[in-house]
């Protein structure tokens, strides 16, 4: 089983944040883009040594996402923590090494995070048209699920990066 160090994963999260803030937007599709940090949080929850590590790692990655955002600090931390908690609850019945599992987990987690974040932004800042919310959420979830499989595969193969 893959095990990771929370510190190394956080470092990888910082690199992923830099990537999200620079190059990733140029590869967006219809305004939606893949969520690399969320993919890392899914990895953190799926392959955690215990639930405490999984929760802490997901939360730290969420805080990192908040650092690069104009939104309130703690929102993504809370959402990533929620996603991580659900994964930790059900991972006993999941075959976590399977790409299909990783794909499904990332898709559902991306839908949850994007949808709730959109609702919070709509309430606190200004209305986002429902068409934009649905379209961007689904497209972003698909892209996130798409990049999750290679990211998790790379992390499972190159264990020195996270162990």
């Amino acid at each position: 089983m893959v095990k990771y160090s929370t510190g190394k994963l956080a470092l990888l999260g910082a690199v992923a944040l830099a990537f999200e803030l620079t190059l990733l937007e140029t590869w967006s599709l219809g305004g939606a883009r893949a969520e690399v940090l969320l993919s890392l949080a899914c990895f953190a929850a799926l392959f955690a040594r215990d639930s405490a590590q999984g929760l802490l790692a997901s939360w730290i990655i969420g805080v990192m996402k908040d650092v690069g955002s104009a939104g309130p600090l703690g929102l993504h931390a809370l959402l990533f923590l929620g996603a991580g908690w659900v994964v930790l609850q059900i991972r006993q019945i999941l075959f976590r090494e399977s790409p299909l599992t990783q794909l499904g987990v990332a898709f559902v987690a991306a839908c949850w995070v994007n949808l709730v974040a959109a609702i919070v932004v709509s309430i606190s800042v200004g209305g986002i048209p429902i068409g934009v919310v649905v379209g961007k959420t689904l497209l972003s979830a698909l892209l996130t699920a798409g990049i999750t499989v290679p990211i998790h595969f790379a992390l499972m193969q190159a264990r020195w990066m996270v162990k």
Partner: protein
Amino acid sequence: MGPKKKRASPWPLILISALLLLVPSTVTQKTRLTAVAGFIPFRSLATWAERLPDKVRPSAESQEAATKVAFLEDQNLKQANELKRLSLQLEQALGMKQPVRDQNYRMIVADVVFPTDSSPWRKSLTIAMGTRDGIEKGLLVLYNNQVVGRISETASRTSRVQIVTDPGFRAGAVAAPKTYISGVSLSERHAGVYQGTAGQNGQLKWFGGETPVENGAFVVTTEDPVNGVPRGLVLGRVATVNHGRGAFPKVEVEPILNFQALEHVMILVPPMEVRTSGTTAGGR
């Protein structure tokens, strides 16, 4: 069967997150912008990576491309000179003056550090100028005569700009006719409110249905001295007009600028009399 593992409770982290959410944004944003400044070296790395495909092109193809580029550059120069001549003629003919220059606004050039926001629902960019350079919340950010956004948060060396497509960005705006009708000035037309949507386009709302709006027309700002917004700055171009069943038509406004490609922007500092007459509006 081994002993049952005790599951960790998420409540302490939920509590910390809730407390962080309660901290005013002005306090947390300063810290975050300072932290983000630590990522500046990654920006130059990304710029290098963006240009990488051009560097690895085969040499024969590269030579052909270089010839084409030289030809196009020459054409471009000729057209730019022609455009300059025509622009001057147009300016003289209409007696137009630059809205910004006319009102003694000051411009400060700032480099873009990060052209995007990590949240998909917020649209912002980070610039390498802050309070120590005299940057304040609410100042308008431009690229040529086009609005990029408004300063929403400041730290000592960096600031965050709320882009026009952010859902929190609002400005008084009007769709300028493609063909100029003599005797009709923009201020006399029915102005609406431009708002970002977190998508690729913004929206022009709350203007009278009798106002003619055509596809491709420029959407420009109306004068707002309280918030330091001069009139005539371009917000975007009308993409679609949906009259629907409501009293007000919905107009989608497509930004002209590619915000991800911006390397520098101009910060518009209003003259002191404008700044003292009203506080500049901060983004939410």
